[in-house]
């Protein structure tokens, strides 16, 4: 993509080139299984120190992308590079020391039988980091860092509120001193008053520790607040990518437009938006021909159902749509 020119290799924390992930989905006892392309030829860079927001609706492949980046799933095709080194040349542990996740639901992502101390030190134990005697100091520093009182060190998650649990999950991710944190819907399960505290904390930690975030969310208001760059996904593809300010100001891809139209800002003078989006999310096992968005797109032409669009540079960033491809524009006319 065009971004490559703008970022030096050493500034890139993670890079995906042409990454695809295909699952074989069983169609029943006697039917042949069918491929489901959860990720379809994704090229994306995560630059050091930035917050890249990844948005899209359920089933678009956001979480599969997170799993690939965490080394939990191997891509079917394509390359993932981490700090300019191929992902495949390192084992899970090497990756885990550089990339850590924070998941959506702090009620299910923490072991209810373990104390806060055990939960936070687990990564140290797994990776045999440092001496056991030093771990307690590490845990108290982490509790301070994420704003939890020291008295909770021996508490169980069941004794804590959702916001406190999410702070424990953040402490567990950060004790390995990772450079990249994959935040997969980190505030979606929380109340608004708690969400704002966790967002503030994530921003503070980024400034303090120089972290890089991939921030996955379906809450676009939150993404606009926190992200410097945004990638919009639809059915396994990135359909638009660029600086957050540009995308929220003037989205180009018709799906990005519909998605942003759906944001309900708390403004009582405005009506419920009339979103220009037809039909339903297609069956990913049987995706539409050409541009997979064409059956729902109000501006689709016959070309869109025939030809699959390729990313077109929209400096800085790109959009995967025939309408914004100057070459196809001539053909359509």
């Amino acid at each position, binding site marked *: 993509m065009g971004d490559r020119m703008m970022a030096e290799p050493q500034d890139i924390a993670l890079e995906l080139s042409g990454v695809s992930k295909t699952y074989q989905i069983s169609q029943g006892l006697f039917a042949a299984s069918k491929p489901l392309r959860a990720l379809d030829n994704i090229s994306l860079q995560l630059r050091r120190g930035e917050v890249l927001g990844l948005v899209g*609706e*359920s089933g678009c492949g956001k979480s599969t992308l997170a799993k690939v980046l965490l080394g939990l799933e191997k891509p079917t095709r394509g390359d993932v590079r981490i700090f300019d080194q191929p992902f495949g040349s390192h084992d899970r542990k090497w990756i885990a020391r550089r990339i850590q996740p924070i998941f959506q639901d702090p009620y299910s992502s923490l072991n209810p039988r373990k104390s806060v101390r055990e939960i936070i030190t687990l990564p140290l134990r797994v990776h045999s980091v440092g001496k056991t005697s030093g771990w307690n100091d590490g845990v108290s520093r982490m509790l301070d860092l994420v704003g939890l009182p020291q008295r909770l060190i021996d508490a169980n998650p069941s004794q804590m509120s959702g916001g406190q649990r999410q702070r424990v999950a953040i402490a567990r991710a950060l004790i390995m001193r990772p450079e990249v944190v994959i935040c997969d819907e980190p505030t979606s399960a929380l109340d*608004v008053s708690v969400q704002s*505290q966790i967002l*503030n904390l994530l921003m503070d930690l980024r400034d303090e520790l120089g972290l890089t975030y991939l921030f996955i969310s379906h809450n676009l208001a939150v993404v606009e607040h926190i992200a410097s760059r945004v990638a919009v996904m639809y059915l396994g593809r990135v359909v638009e990518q660029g600086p957050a300010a540009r995308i929220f100001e003037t989205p180009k891809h018709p799906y990005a437009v519909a998605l942003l139209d759906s944001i*309900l800002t*708390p403004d*009582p003078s405005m009506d*419920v938006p009339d979103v220009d989006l037809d039909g339903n999310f297609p069956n990913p096992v049987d995706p539409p021909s050409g541009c997979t968005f064409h059956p729902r797109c109000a501006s689709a032409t016959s070309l869109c159902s025939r030809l699959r669009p390729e990313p077109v540079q929209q400096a800085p960033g790109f959009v995967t749509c025939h309408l914004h491809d100057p070459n196809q524009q001539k053909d359509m006319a």
Partner: protein
Amino acid sequence: MNSLLSVRNLRVEIPVGAGLLKPVRGISLDLNKGETLCIVGESGCGKSLTSLALMGLLPKVARCSGDRLSFGGQDLLGLTERQMARLRGRAISMVFQEPMTSLNPAYTIGDQLIEGMIRHDGVSRAKARDRAIFLLEKVGITAAASRLSQFPHQLSGGLRQRVMIAMSLMCGPDLIIADEPTTALDVTIQAKILRMMKDLQAELGMAMVFITHDLGVVARIADRIAVMYAGIFVETGTARQIFDTPTHPYTKGLLSCLPVPGKTKLGARLGAVPGVVPALIGGVQGCGFASRCPLRQAACDIEPELSERGDGHSCRCVHDTPTLRKAEWATA
């Protein structure tokens, strides 16, 4: 004024191991025909139990009491379960949050749609079927007739919720109680469903009690808003009053927590409401919000009454708080 739904001092009490849990501690509301009231609050504030109490669907252990609960002039508190069942699904209907758990997976959606109408109105199957097709088309489902023979698992979440809404309209209710009907849905689907509910309401003239924690949704659909905290309404008013001139410290705190596209600056600190909701076992002493309130003072030890601030805008706070600026929350 003859309101459709009139509630005074509604209480719900549930005996639990540790004592008497009081999740709803006396709420009052009036709802006119065709009006939308949004009850907004965070998890555990009692908003869902309020809706169940209005529908007479509380679990058996719960005790519901009140000075008045009348619907269309009829006293609901005095009704037997059988009388209430006759009302439910016909004059008052409900849309729940999770359409997968509120639809029966073993029956086709057609069977589930027409069941209530046949039972309540005694119409023929064919007539109920026609009504079902008519309503499925109204809620924006294509090929409605063929959908009737489908099972819930064959439909997407958005379609299921449309079916639930169609089902709630089968008997032409005067009041719909919707408890977080769009929370489990994607944003584009949410916008479409809300648009549709609003259009249907305008067309059919029913009133709606809409329960949600999403202030964005509230702002766009509410005529009137009740902000609920620890089992009571702490502030009520029109949508404009609540969003433009919020008065209660809790309402102000909540609004300051929201990143607003185009308004809050990238990465700027959001407001916060520190602390946790009080335990509601054995009731609450004084103002329920006092433990989290930056303006707490001695007077807060006595529970304040809901007092009128003019034009139907009421607030339950001892402070006259026009001077409390949002900025004070940013540092809280």
